[in-house]
């Protein structure tokens, strides 16, 4: 029988490994990166079958010289102030992150997750949506709130779980929620909401509404079962949803190859469902915005879902509980070929004479002042272990619309 046939070599298990580990020299030469402006822009109603190529390339707009080039740039043509606003959002998010990271180290809260290197994605995407649309974000899309004008103080109250927190200190830091800002309550469970985004979009379609939804998921989380359910339902019912995959190369200590397997890209997953799938330079604010506009237009026109893979790099640790140097070279981040989103948009604005190093430094100072002020105000209310915290009574609220007898008894037993 085959399993003892000497002519057949024994089997062996393949376990994908990243190109380098700590001690090794980072090498991204294996990552093919097309020149900016070279990838075509199909019509939003082009047949999905005719766009398969877009799942295996990278749509890029900003070139080395900071110029915006190619069909996606032309279709975009953003007014100058919108570009300056975009830069400001990314700077604000980065500075806010830095302050909160420090606050966590100072034990003002238990935990934090930053966006370092990924700011362009959520900040640019937010601007492509309309009021009433709904994002189903992960913990790494706070740019959707920042770019949506959500007050910093609200965010900080949530991070500190203080008495100002609208979520009453129930949720882990950064798991924000704001219906008015189209930001669905973030779950700590991965991938569950990617599917809910599809259901939300289906509901809008069932209701003859015009609102669309956006699902968000990380490269590692695409391995979760709900990712499949999301694509099945989106594909079958042509849900008006943008399915965003943020490929920042890493899960926690696990590199993208473990989730991706033999497929060259994550965008490729969409092809198995006949869903248009685009890959875009996630560190290119203009490219992200251009592709977001395209996908949002498809959904809005009832043409169905679009899968978008954002190619980026998680420059920081996974969270404040993580030390990336334990599993990847510290130099890897600097070697990342797509650069830094803030630096790249800044260069573009300077190239266009809309911005300067001076104004940038000045803006940084202003934003820092703004963030610091908001932080002072927030800390005046309280932080995780100090100051005014939500009432313990709140712990028993909102489990149900109306508190059932057994819960009321428990609250009394607890003494509140």
């Amino acid at each position: 029988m085959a399993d003892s046939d000497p002519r057949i070599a024994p089997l062996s298990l393949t376990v994908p490994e990243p190109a380098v580990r700590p001690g090794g020299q980072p090498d991204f030469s294996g990552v093919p990166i097309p020149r900016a402006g070279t990838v075509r822009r199909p019509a939003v109603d082009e047949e999905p079958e005719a766009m398969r190529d877009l799942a295996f390339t990278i749509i890029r707009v900003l070139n080395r010289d900071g110029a915006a080039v190619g069909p996606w740039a032309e279709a975009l043509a953003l007014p100058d102030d919108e570009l300056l606003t975009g830069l400001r959002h990314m700077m604000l998010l980065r500075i806010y992150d830095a302050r909160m990271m420090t606050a966590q180290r100072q034990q003002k809260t238990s935990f934090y997750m930053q966006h370092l290197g990924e700011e362009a994605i959520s900040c640019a995407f937010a601007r492509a949506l309309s009021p009433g649309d709904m994002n189903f974000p992960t913990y790494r899309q706070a740019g959707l709130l920042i770019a949506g004008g959500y007050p910093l103080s609200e965010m900080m109250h949530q991070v500190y779980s203080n008495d100002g927190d609208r979520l009453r200190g129930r949720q882990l830091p950064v798991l924000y929620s704001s219906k008015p800002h189209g930001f669905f309550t973030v779950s700590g469970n991965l991938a569950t909401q990617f599917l809910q985004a599809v259901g939300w979009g289906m509901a809008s379609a069932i209701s003859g509404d015009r609102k669309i939804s956006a699902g968000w998921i990380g490269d590692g989380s695409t391995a979760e079962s709900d990712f499949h359910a999301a694509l099945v339902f989106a594909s079958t019912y042509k849900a008006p949803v943008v399915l965003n995959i943020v490929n920042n190369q890493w899960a926690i200590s696990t590199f993208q190859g473990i989730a991706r397997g033999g497929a060259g890209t994550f965008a490729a997953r969409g092809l198995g469902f006949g869903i248009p799938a685009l890959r875009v330079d996630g560190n290119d604010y203009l490219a992200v915005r251009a592709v977001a506009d395209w996908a949002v237009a498809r959904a809005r026109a009832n043409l169905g879902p679009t899968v978008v893979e954002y190619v980026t790099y998680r420059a920081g640790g996974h969270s404040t509980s993580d030390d990336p140097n334990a599993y990847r070279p510290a130099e890897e981040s600097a070697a990342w070929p797509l650069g830094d989103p803030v630096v790249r948009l800044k260069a573009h604005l300077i190239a266009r004479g809309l911005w300067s190093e001076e104004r940038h430094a000045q803006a940084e100072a202003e934003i820092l002042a703004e963030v610091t002020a908001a932080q002072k105000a927030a800390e005046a209310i309280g932080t995780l272990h100090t100051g005014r915290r939500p009432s313990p009574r709140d712990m028993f609220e909102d489990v149900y619309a109306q508190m059932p007898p057994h819960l009321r008894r428990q609250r009394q037993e607890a003494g509140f």
Partner: protein
Amino acid sequence: MPRMTMIEAIRDAMDVSMAADPAVVVFGEDVGYFGGVFRCTAGLQKKYGPSRCFDAPISESGIVGAGIGMAAYGLKPVVEIQFADYVYPAYDQIVSEAARLRYRSAGEFTCPMVIRMPTGGGIFGGQTHSQSPEALFTHVTGLKVVVPSNPQDAKGLLIAAIEDPDPVVFLEPKRLYNGPFDGWHDRPVTAWKTHAQSEVAEGHYSVALGQAAVRREGRAVTILAYGTMVHVALAGAEAAGVDAEVIDLRTLLPLDLEAIVTSVRKTGRCLVLHEATLTSGFGAELAALVQAECFYHLEAPVRRVAGWDTPYPHVHEWIYFPGPERVARALTELVEEA
């Protein structure tokens, strides 16, 4: 009043709700054109169109997860899981999401969804068409859990569940779909048509969640049951000739503890019944509560009669199923004790 089977009553509840509220949508495996493998949604697609009643892919997680998104949008999804035995792929969406949205978002996002599923045994369905997973939901705060035992209640409870602002797991004892079943499997089955509880009022009415009903008054012992076991309890009491009070819990979460305590303090004895396996079944919670609330009135320990701790077998269905003989034996021992 019109007489309906449990299936007709459940269908009528959805029909009435869909007619009254355009936000009510119904979907699940085979529920659209065909109307469900048990026909509970027959005719609804024809009447309300394919975007309000449709077939879903075979993905329980997808059905519930998409439903949660719809509920968060503002619809009232009533989804069907073809058999309760197949709800586990959706367990994460139910436990981690549906049950938590309101709490997590401090009421900003909610999940007014009903998850219907046929439950229980008695149809020779073997391991995967016979399970009773209610205890896996009663441990999950944020959910409500309902198990009707007759057409009247089924319609009223389902309408109440659809109108409830929170997620409700609605377990339908499939052995009762076409007629009451008292566990005497070898005796001729009576149809609902000949049963008082099949008189179902037309149009809209609801039976409040969280309220039990006394099905039989008695002084000697209190039997706590729900779903199919309510009928088995009555048959068991008959067979034993014991003056048992039979309480149909109807809603397991939140529980009508007051009705239970009042009865047990009166009878001083309590028998808990369910089809589900014994260990960590909902009967454990009932026994724990009863002994805590009625300790000084109890003349004998609370007893549980339940499914054996094995997977649900095929050929030995009637040895596995906690039928009237087991109930009668337990009752006799219980009233004789102490």
